[in-house]
């Protein structure tokens, strides 16, 4: 059976179990060492699990909810459901109970496979609202011994004697056009929508990029993002089943950094905020290093900034710089890549959100082959990918083979690709809005094609606005430039249909507290530190540097930041200010903190704020504080050349 005709994931799995049975499919750090699941063992587990599900009455076309962290058994559950022609529905393991209700009701889910007691309690809590939920299977039985609910049963009980003929028949029934999985987009607006994706869509896109990047079964990926995110699913489920490479699951959230260094993946994908957090961690730790190391780091990072990317792309570089860079590679970049576990990275992608150009070049100058990609859940991720050799910091690259692009007059990007989703589940109205008659999908992102044929994304179409004087206002681009500074963790820019741009800022607790300690600045907690004048001054300098940069770019000159305030609390997904993938929900924040936005615009020096805050253990309480507002120095476009 040539690889080509394998049009469903179970068929691919059986092929790998046959072709490379002894090769590692999944490694999991458990009980202190990396436990290995070979392809054969993984296939046997899937077949046994599928038999179990069938015995429990799981029908073809039915949905299976899967809630849990990256664990071999969670991926086995996905494939087992697909063997029976069922549709796995991965849900975010850190989602609130209320956020899980809609998907289960919407897909009338009867069966769920979850990881541990925390997820079981979540499902039990919403049982009354989801009458359809009949059976819940848990993997880690810790603490569940005395639970008596009838719906509950352990994963082990599901593992049945393998009825080979039955399973092979079921797998053969499957075809490319069947639905492979359904992902609920948290979306920055409104009710979540169930994106239905067929085997063909996912496999086609996965294979197109696998061939483009020449992925082999020798590659290794570390799976540390939530499985419910399409990005993680493509990299640790779809593509491994296409290319046959091995995915590794870290032991726990705290040990991801050490596990990353132990595994040293060759193929890496993460949203921009992971790269931001990594950069902040590097700069904070380098801050504590001795004088010599700091000097060494600064000088060689300077060299890297100057020539790093050119050397990575093999372009011409003066001999002295090349020698200096090699010296730097031996003493700084090499060890830095090694400590971050990135020394074996052949291909690293960033996507899901726009990434700040300075952050992007930082990693490339270190010799890490970081590239941008663009896509969304509805397009099976791969729409545009920067191939090796054509990497630019402010574009998302040309279209992937098989994808057609076009732009509406309002600059909205439309695409047509075999990877398009079939529909929004039980939401024909939304499907019609998103996919027009000729099959063009409205991405909702604004952008244009640059001379090299690369797509340049400006921002979400809805958010791209114009200042009162009509010039372009791209909040995401501005926010990314602000977030490059280690002290700023999150930024929300306002300016649509207004004369000036103002900004909410969130400080990065680690970086700023470390900075404060160095100047022995006393503070009691996050809010107290955020409101200190010294911190406003520090953040103000960062804003002014961004303004200086913006002034040099004619198009964006007058979207410089005029006034800013530092929020009293960190924006949090639990308070719905961020999506589950930590993207800013600008509209929701604008409404929730409307009084603050007004205060920014009518020149108040401070504003009193009360907000409902949800504590860790679910209790909510009232919170009040006076937030200072500061003006930031802006630069005339021409004069900016020699400032800063």
């Amino acid at each position: 059976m040539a690889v080509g005709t394998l049009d469903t994931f179970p068929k691919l799995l059986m092929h790998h179990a046959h072709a490379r049975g002894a090769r590692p499919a999944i490694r999991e750090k458990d009980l202190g060492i990396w436990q290995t699941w070979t392809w054969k063992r993984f296939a046997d587990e899937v077949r046994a699990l599928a038999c179990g599900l069938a015995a429990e009455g799981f029908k073809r076309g039915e949905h299976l909810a899967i809630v849990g962290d990256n664990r071999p058994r969670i991926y086995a559950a996905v494939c087992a459901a697909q063997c029976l022609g069922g549709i796995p529905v991965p849900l975010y393991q850190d989602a609130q109970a209320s956020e899980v209700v809609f998907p289960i009701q919407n897909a009338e889910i009867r069966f769920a496979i979850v990881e541990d007691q925390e997820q079981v309690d979540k499902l039990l809590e919403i049982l009354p609202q989801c009458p359809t939920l009949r059976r819940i299977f848990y993997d880690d039985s810790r603490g569940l011994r005395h639970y008596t609910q009838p719906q509950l049963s352990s994963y082990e009980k599901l593992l049945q004697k393998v009825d080979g003929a039955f399973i092979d028949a079921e797998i053969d029934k499957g075809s490319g056009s069947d639905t492979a999985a359904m992902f609920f987009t948290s979306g920055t607006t409104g009710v979540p929508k169930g994106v239905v994706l067929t085997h063909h869509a996912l496999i086609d896109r996965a294979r197109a990029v696998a061939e483009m990047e020449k992925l082999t079964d020798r590659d290794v990926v570390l799976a540390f993002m939530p499985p419910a995110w399409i990005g993680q699913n493509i990299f640790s489920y779809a593509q491994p089943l296409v290319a046959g490479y091995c995915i590794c699951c870290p032991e726990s959230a705290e040990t991801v950094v050490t596990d990353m260094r132990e595994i040293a993946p060759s193929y890496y994908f993460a949203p921009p905020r992971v790269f931001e957090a990594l950069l902040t961690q590097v700069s904070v730790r380098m801050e504590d290093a001795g004088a010599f190391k700091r000097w060494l780091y600064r000088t060689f990072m300077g060299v890297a900034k100057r020539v790093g990317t050119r050397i990575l792309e093999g372009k011409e570089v003066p001999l002295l710089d090349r020698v200096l860079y090699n010296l730097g590679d031996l003493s700084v970049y090499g060890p830095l890549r090694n400590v971050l576990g990135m020394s074996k990275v052949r291909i690293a992608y960033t996507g899901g959100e726009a990434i700040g150009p300075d952050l992007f070049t930082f990693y490339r100058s270190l010799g890490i082959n970081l590239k941008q990609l663009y896509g969304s859940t509805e397009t099976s991720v791969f729409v545009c990918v920067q191939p090796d050799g054509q990497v630019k910091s402010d574009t998302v690259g040309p279209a992937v083979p098989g994808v057609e692009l076009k732009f509406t007059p309002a600059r909205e990007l439309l695409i047509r690709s075999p990877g398009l989703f079939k529909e929004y589940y039980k939401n024909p109205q939304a499907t019609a809005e998103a996919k027009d008659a000729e099959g063009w999908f409205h991405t909702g992102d604004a952008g244009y094609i640059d001379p090299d044929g690369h797509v340049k994304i400006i921002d979400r179409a809805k958010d791209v606005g114009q200042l009162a004087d009509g010039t372009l206002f791209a909040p995401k681009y501005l926010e990314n430039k602000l977030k490059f500074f280690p002290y700023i963790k999150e930024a929300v820019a306002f300016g649509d249909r207004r004369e000036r741009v103002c900004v909410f800022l969130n400080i990065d607790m680690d970086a700023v507290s470390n900075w404060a300690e160095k100047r022995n600045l006393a503070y009691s907690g996050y809010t107290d530190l955020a409101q200190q004048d010294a911190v406003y001054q520090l953040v103000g300098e960062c804003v002014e540097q961004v303004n200086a940069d913006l002034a040099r770019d004619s198009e964006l000159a007058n979207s410089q930041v005029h006034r800013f305030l530092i929020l009293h609390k960190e924006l949090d997904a639990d308070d719905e200010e961020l999506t589950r993938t930590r993207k800013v929900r600008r509209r929701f924040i604008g409404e929730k903190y409307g009084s603050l936005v007004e205060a920014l615009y009518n020149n108040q020096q401070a504003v009193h704020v009360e907000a409902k805050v949800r504590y860790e253990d679910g209790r909510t309480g009232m919170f009040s504080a006076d937030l200072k507002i500061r003006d930031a120095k802006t630069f005339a476009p021409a004069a900016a050349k020699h400032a800063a």
Partner: protein
Amino acid sequence: MILSVENVSLSFGGVRALQDVSFDVKEHEVRAIIGPNGAGKSSMLNVLNGVYHPQKGKIRFRDKEFTDMDSHEAAALGIARTFQNIALFKGMTVLDNIMTGRNLKMRCNFLQQAVWFGPAKREEMAHRRAAEEIIDFLEIQHVRKTPVGRLPYGLQKRVELGRALAAEPTLLLLDEPMAGMNLEEKQDMCRFVLDVNDHYGTTIVLIEHDMGVVMDISDRVVVLDYGRKIADGVPEEIKNNKAVIDAYLGVAH
């Protein structure tokens, strides 16, 4: 009835730490010992595991009776304990501390260990696996290889509990496991103590000051005051027992 203390009296020179104390502990029970400072709680625990030898009375554990048991004999019988102020081995890492807890279960002699390959290596790996299960159980994977001295107080308490569990005891004596902990650490420790009782079926004798904790997690409570037992029963009874309230509020004797 797994353990019964019969008329035990203990004194150091003139100081009478325990006077004629008797109580029993049922199998798989969480038994709390409470009382104001200096009531003799720690001394009672030290008698139970053979660190102090009582002048009068005897202890019946399972079916064996003894008065002057030595502490490492108690360990061999399956009695493990933690200390009020942490007694960890500062020169070793977390993993080594927990592995030391398993010494009673290891059979290889020092020659086999010197050769390492063969039985000694197999045994070491098997016991490492058991230690890892305890590390996983107590959620301290991220500090597995750190020297114990560098850990914060809460984690050190957890490691000490881990070392006691490593011996797979039938009776676990906890000497104020939650002293000096913040609310969140206390909740974690309560969860661990209940999980130990539930998952491993270990009988637990617990000394604790925090009434909230005692009332929540203990099946029965003994109250000591000035070395004498003044009350014994279910938490509810103890809560409104006049003698106990007086002892704590310090009514004149």
